[in-house]
């Protein structure tokens, strides 16, 4: 069994300063306001010789995590700052890191302070084994977002995705920023459509390993696996319900592809669609009361919404000849999906009632949108020239960042809850 998580974060100690979101900052960070100017100071050793590599690694993580939120404008910690009357006077906040390296572990002290007054906004100390040092920085980034906006970040979540790095389509897990990729499902067959349980500790996926596209559920920490659905025909595009006890799934056992509701152990609860067209790709609303899906009942694939009991089925996309892959946002206000343009796709956002349909990607071909658990970001597969890779962008289409690093075809990302 692959060790999915190392015993890390031995100590997470709250230092003076509040972890609760401050009203002042909630106002400042509100949407539409200008970005806060942030200095990320080069991490310094508490004592002894500096470790330049470690210092650079930590600073780079903060730059990426906090930079992609779009909430901060990074101010260079320029050397002449030291000479200035008030250091960091041209910034709103300073992020300071002090580290202590011992043979067994690394201890970090992270502090976010107001630049001019030096007032501490958030401070934490972490002790971690060396391979978990990245996690300490991602955790502090999540905490900074909580302190400043009232909503925690998703940087300690994992991305599951399908990779052809080994030749076949296999399922991997990596950090949100593409580090620590690990193969978790490989069987020489085709493996598709990973989806995390709400806890992030289980994964469902479709595999041909038994000769038919069946749905499997795997516990990531124990490796225990169950063949949840193996009806004749397809058992694909499984989606965990928001509370994690049910799975919506497309199966063709009764003639053509229809959407069904199962318990997470595979017991059928209900059949939700009934028509001779293809119904596929269910996605739950965050309250579990509705399901978005794809149907070609009017000729071409379009996005529909229905109640979780199958009633009240409505088409919501009215433009575009080929719309697929809906994913409901964690806040419930938007549905991301992809529309075919020529021979490629672009990602759109639409309101669940069908209003405000707009395209948010333009470059290359972009598919398989999935939301980060905090709803700030969309992770997706993008093909720009060569192979498909995993990308992340903000939920308005800005901040496009390439994440996967293997160079192999990588698609179908899913973003887990915090690990």
């Amino acid at each position, binding site marked *: 069994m692959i060790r999915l998580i190392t015993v890390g974060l031995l100590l997470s100690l709250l230092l003076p300063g509040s972890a609760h979101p401050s009203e002042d900052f909630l106002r400042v960070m509100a949407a539409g306001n200008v970005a806060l100017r942030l200095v990320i100071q080069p991490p310094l050793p508490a004592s002894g010789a500096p470790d330049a590599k470690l210092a650079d690694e930590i600073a780079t993580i903060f730059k990426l995590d906090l930079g992609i939120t779009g909430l901060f404008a990074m101010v260079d910690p320029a050397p002449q700052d030291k000479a200035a009357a008030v250091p960091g006077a041209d910034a709103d906040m300073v992020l300071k890191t002090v580290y202590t390296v011992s043979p067994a572990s690394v201890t970090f002290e992270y502090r976010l302070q107001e630049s001019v007054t030096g007032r501490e906004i958030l401070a934490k100390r972490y002790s971690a084994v060396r391979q978990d040092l990245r996690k300490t920085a991602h955790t502090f980034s999540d905490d900074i977002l909580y302190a400043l906006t009232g909503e925690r970040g998703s940087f300690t979540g994992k991305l599951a995705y399908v990779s052809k790095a080994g030749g076949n*389509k296999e399922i991997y897990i990596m950090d949100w920023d593409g580090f620590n990729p690990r193969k978790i499902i490989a069987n020489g067959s*085709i493996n*598709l*459509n990973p989806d995390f349980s709400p806890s992030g500790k289980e994964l469902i996926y479709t595999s041909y390993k038994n*000769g*038919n*596209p069946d749905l499997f559920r795997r516990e990531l920490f124990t490796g225990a696996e169950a063949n949840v659905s193996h009806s004749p*025909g*397809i058992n*694909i*595009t499984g989606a965990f319900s928001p509370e994690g006890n049910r799975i919506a799934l*497309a199966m*063709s056992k009764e003639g*053509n*592809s229809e959407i069904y509701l199962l318990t997470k152990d595979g017991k059928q609860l209900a059949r939700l669609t009934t028509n001779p067209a*293809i119904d*596929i*790709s269910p996605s739950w609303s965050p309250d579990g009361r509705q399901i978005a899906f*794809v149907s*070609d009942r009017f000729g*071409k*694939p379009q996005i529909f919404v229905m109640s979780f009991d199958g009633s009240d089925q409505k088409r919501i996309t009215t433009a575009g000849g*080929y719309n*697929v*892959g809906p994913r409901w946002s964690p806040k419930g206000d938007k549905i991301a999906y*992809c529309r*075919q343009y020529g*021979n490629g*796709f672009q990602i759109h956002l639409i309101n669940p009632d069908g209003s405000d349909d707009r395209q948010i990607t333009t470059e290359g071909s972009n*598919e398989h949108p999935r939301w980060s658990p905090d709803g700030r970001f969309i992770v997706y597969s993008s093909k720009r020239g060569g192979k498909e890779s995993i990308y992340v962008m903000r939920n308005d289409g800005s901040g496009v960042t390439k994440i996967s690093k293997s160079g192999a075809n990588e*698609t*179908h990302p899913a973003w887990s809850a915090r690990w």
Partner: protein
Amino acid sequence: MRKNLCVALSVLSLGLLLTSGCAKDQVKPDEGIASKTAAAKASGPGQNDASQQSAAQQQSAAQQQSSAQQQATAQQQSAAAQQQAADRAAAEKAAAAKAAQQQAEEKAAAERASAAKAAQKQSDALVSALKMINFEFDSFALSQQSRDILYANAEYLLKNYKGKLKLEGHCDERGSDEYNLALGENRAKAALNYLLTLGVPASQLSIISYGKERPLDPASTEEAWAKNRRVEFKEIK
């Protein structure tokens, strides 16, 4: 001492069992018990000598239990003789069985080889006889050309093939991979249903969809896409 006797007795009784078993084999079912004994006595040397000896030995063993030591020696000799005879018979039997088995194996191997050859020939013929069919983009409708191909395939199957077939539905790379899994299945199903109407038994046919996961031609050209939108016929071995 007592132990020795016990061993000897048990070897003896085993010998008795063996030899009486042999004797019984030579008796016809309609003969009485008396004639059975006679037959055993009348039959020639070898095992039946041993049988007679052992019968005598059994008697003397019963009568002379008090002088057990002498008897034990005699019994051991007798048991050894029986054992020799039994071994000889077993060896002959084993040799015959081995020869027969070898022959059977050779025959089976030859049969297997020729069966494999025939199966391969049939597979090759099947592969060259059963043409794949193609589709328009985002469609599982059977064109006239596809129907003609399926008709020819059905004719071939009805005449020449009683085994099982899998119909594999495939798509080109342009559509959504999820939707294409359902579309590929609809293509395979369309082909299946047409073959059924042409009289191919349902028990011979099954379907699977690979969506766009297994293109014949990985190129991103109209020509490759047209080739990849297909249903293929695969023998289930």
